[in-house]
């Protein structure tokens, strides 16, 4: 069953800027892969719970204790752009 993908929408959701040729190419590749992956739909899974974790455990916590932080210098040393102790980015279009 051919799968129809709005690849431009997916690329936007994934924040990857692709030109039209790339979008078309990836779209086709994804369709091929998904046709194969779609096979999972053939398995009867009625009443089967999804596995989110291989580990059947619950309630892992840490105590409310302050442990170390990183030195700001070390953090900002990796920043592509910083100013006065802040990370700097170009103007932001969207509201959160």
């Amino acid at each position: 069953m051919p799968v129809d993908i709005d690849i431009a929408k997916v690329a936007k959701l994934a924040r990857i800027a692709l030109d039209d040729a790339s979008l078309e190419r990836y779209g086709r590749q994804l369709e091929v892969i998904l046709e194969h992956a779609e096979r999972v739909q053939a398995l009867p899974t009625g009443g089967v719970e999804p596995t989110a974790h291989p580990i059947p455990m619950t309630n892992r916590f840490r105590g409310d204790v302050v442990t170390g932080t990183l030195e700001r210098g070390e953090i900002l040393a990796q920043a592509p752009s910083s100013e006065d102790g802040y990370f700097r980015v170009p103007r932001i279009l969207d509201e959160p």
Partner: protein
Amino acid sequence: MNDLADLTIVEAGRRMRSGECSAADLLDAVIRRASFTEAHLHAYLLIDRDGAGAAAEAADAELAAGRDRGPLHGIPLALKDNLTTRGLATTCSSRILEGYVPPYDATAVARLRQAGAVIVGKTNLDEFAMGSSTENSAFGPSRNPWDPDRVPGGSSGGVAAAVAAGSALGGFGTDTGGSVRQPGSLCGVVGMKPTYGRVSRYGLIAFASSLDQIGPLARSVEDAVVLLEAVAGFDVNDSTSIPGDVPDLRAGLGAGVAGMRIGVVRELMGKGIDREVLAATGAMVDRLSDAGADIVEVSIPAVEYALSAYYLIAPAEASANLARFDGVRYGLRVDGDTTEEMMARTRADGFGPEVIRRVLLGTYALSAGYYDAFYGQAQKVRTLLRREFAAAYEKVDALVSPTSPTTAFEVGAKTADPLAMYYSDVCTIPINLSGDPGISVPIGLDDARLPIGFQVMAPALAEPVLFQVAAEVERIAAFAARPSLAASEPLPT
């Protein structure tokens, strides 16, 4: 064989303690070997001569002063470049992390340092661990020491090649769909994936969070045990890390397989598996029977769907794990007028095609309207698979299969068709989904003189059983062949 670079970790340790060699000697030997092999293999992205030298020196001084940190003291190891190393560039073989220097060590790395290990450098991988050949590395592929026109496997191809070639005595990779076991198989070394949660993932740069595990690559099963012992165990910084004590991993070494029940996975012994690989696997199964094991055929029907489920679950988780690479706080930044533009361009330029493919695939599989059919359904298939493995382990102590459907293929042979490449993981993927441990042991060569790997699998937490069977396989195989590139002199160019 008198080159220190070809020793096992256990043997190297013995010689160090008997005074026959020093940690500095071991390091010199592997660095020298690397100087011959790297031009052909490109196993390493970074060799840290200064750091390793200092660590070797410190290891020797400590031993001399009577401080012995254990079996990895002074042993030169290679680490896959998706494990964070403080102060040492960690790139995941991606342009988006080119030059990124982590401010912290992965827990496994910290434990290795504590154990006195000498970290030689960081090895090549498929970008963000996505691949089965290292051809997806942004910095060029690695090559197979058995035939440099062929791939070493992936994604931990660099560390497997280094260990096989002698430019490290052992090392660690990561296994999400087979990425330690399969390169182990293709390079003729032992590669092992622990039970999910056995080794902390803190500092393992995530690909698929519910599948990733750090695993050792080594020249012997015993070496693999030694390596795993040093890093296994509960970590407060990883919520998915298994609490409680690690069992005695050596308990079964040398005990043989007499009286054990071993199941051969029917679905992994048929179509799609190379004739010679099948023959070698069958022959080893017969030898195990001769050695006293009860062999039965076991059917795990859901295995047929494992590859499909994996190619929905892994990319889905990866699409979220790789979202943090956006040019804001670290790594590559490609400018834009707006932050949105900057992020989108950075990711388009910084990620290679396979990564982009999987991020798009994963994003799609999770998106509204498709979640239930794809990701949701794949997680249910996973449950079915786990049930079937659990049912199988009611009847047998361990399961076996080939590790890889083929031996090492030529560079470029599978890059045109992603599906063909994905198929390399058909034997290894099932237990990433189930969370159980598995190991690949080299058992022989095919007609082209390429290694064949035999996979042993055991129930979750049963590493001692796994190693017990693996050690017997190793004993029976008596695999002593050496790759042509593991030479002690400069090779003809």
